[in-house]
């Protein structure tokens, strides 16, 4: 029993859920509303980040050419345009490469059916129940009890589980965890969470390439801490 409760706490702990599933909703709110809300928020997030980038580009350009009056407006426009191009490229990276980046930073490895038929079967069952295509299945070598889902849409989705959680659960308990993860796919929580994690990660990179002790951020964040900082938060 204690095994079960600790699994629940780790995987479903407070403050670890994506915003879209926290709080109580009136009964009239269906999963379709949540799905639409997550898609809207994803678009809003991309729009906001591009606008922010353009504004920063404009301000930097204005600061650089500060004194020369005639050059001010052309440089502001150029600065914003350059920032938009860079922002557009990083958005494309977040969209198409975000899931792979999150899985890689979590140390997740894709497995084949033969490696764990029971896990595959369970994921397949809950996918049928949700009416979704089968997501890819990943395993993280970690004794912590955790699982998450990521991807940009149900056709490009993945679920990942730690070896610790995999070993701690019975078949029926595993089905419950995977049903939860597949529900995140169904609701497009994965899209919003993936964009937030990768865009926030990029900002951390840009602002803080080297931390105070001179260790590059990407080295300090790799491995277990990397898993904590990115994917594992979105269980």
């Amino acid at each position, binding site marked *: 029993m204690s095994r079960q409760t600790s699994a629940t706490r780790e995987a479903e702990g407070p403050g670890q859920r994506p915003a879209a599933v926290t709080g109580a909703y009136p009964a009239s709110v269906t999963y379709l509303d949540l799905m639409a809300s997550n898609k809207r928020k994803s678009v809003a997030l991309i729009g906001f980040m591009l606008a922010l980038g353009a504004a920063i580009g404009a301000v930097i350009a204005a600061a650089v050419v500060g004194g020369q009056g005639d050059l001010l407006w052309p440089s502001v426009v150029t600065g914003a345009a350059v920032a938009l191009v860079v922002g557009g490229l990083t958005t494309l990276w977040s969209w198409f490469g975000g899931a792979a980046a999150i899985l890689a930073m979590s140390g997740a490895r894709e497995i084949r059916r033969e490696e764990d*038929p029971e896990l595959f079967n369970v994921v*397949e*069952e809950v996918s*049928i129940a949700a009416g979704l295509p089968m997501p890819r299945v990943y395993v993280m070598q970690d004794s912590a009890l955790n699982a998450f889902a990521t991807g940009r849409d149900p056709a490009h989705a993945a679920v990942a589980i730690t070896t610790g959680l995999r070993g701690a659960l019975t078949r029926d308990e595993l089905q419950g965890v995977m049903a939860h993860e597949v529900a995140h796919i169904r609701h497009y929580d994965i899209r919003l969470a993936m964009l937030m994690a990768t865009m926030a990660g990029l900002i951390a990179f840009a602002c803080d390439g080297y931390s105070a002790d001179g260790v590059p951020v990407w080295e300090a964040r790799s491995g277990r801490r990397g898993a904590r900082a990115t994917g594992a938060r979105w269980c």
Partner: protein
Amino acid sequence: MGTGLIVGLSIAAVLVIVVLWAIAVYNGLVGKRVDCDNGWSQIDVQLKRRYDLIPNLVETVKGYAKHEAGTLEAVIAARSRAMGASAGGVGERAEAENMLTGALGKLFALSEAYPDLKANTNFLGLQEELKTTENKIGFARQHYNDTVARYESSRQMFPASIIAGAFSFARREYFEVKDGAVREAPKVQF
């Protein structure tokens, strides 16, 4: 503009609206019917998978539990009956499949009494495969019944029912678990 022209144009406009509405309803019904067929084919895939797994299971169990010929024969008979019913209607099929589920449940309950059988990796593999197939049938049935519910409510509701009647959109049956024995967990007797 004469009165006749105005009346004529009004009638034409109403006709156009009615025709567009009819097209929309017709296409909606076709879409929902396709969903039903698709939902049904998902159940079908799993049922066929189950037929394929059973002979192996029976062979494996036979080696360990020779005295359970009756239960094994019941499984084989239920499988043949279910395969025979696969050409029939949904109701007939559901009944045959439910009997097969019941017979398999008894077989797995019985295997509890044979420790050697339960330790056999081949048996464990088959047990997992049949369990997942059973679960998939359950989930696929749930999904299929949802699609039937959506189709039936649009088909029967007025005024769409006029279109459904005119183009003979046939009733779709739910895949139901009617048999009381299937709903109950199999009882184990020693």
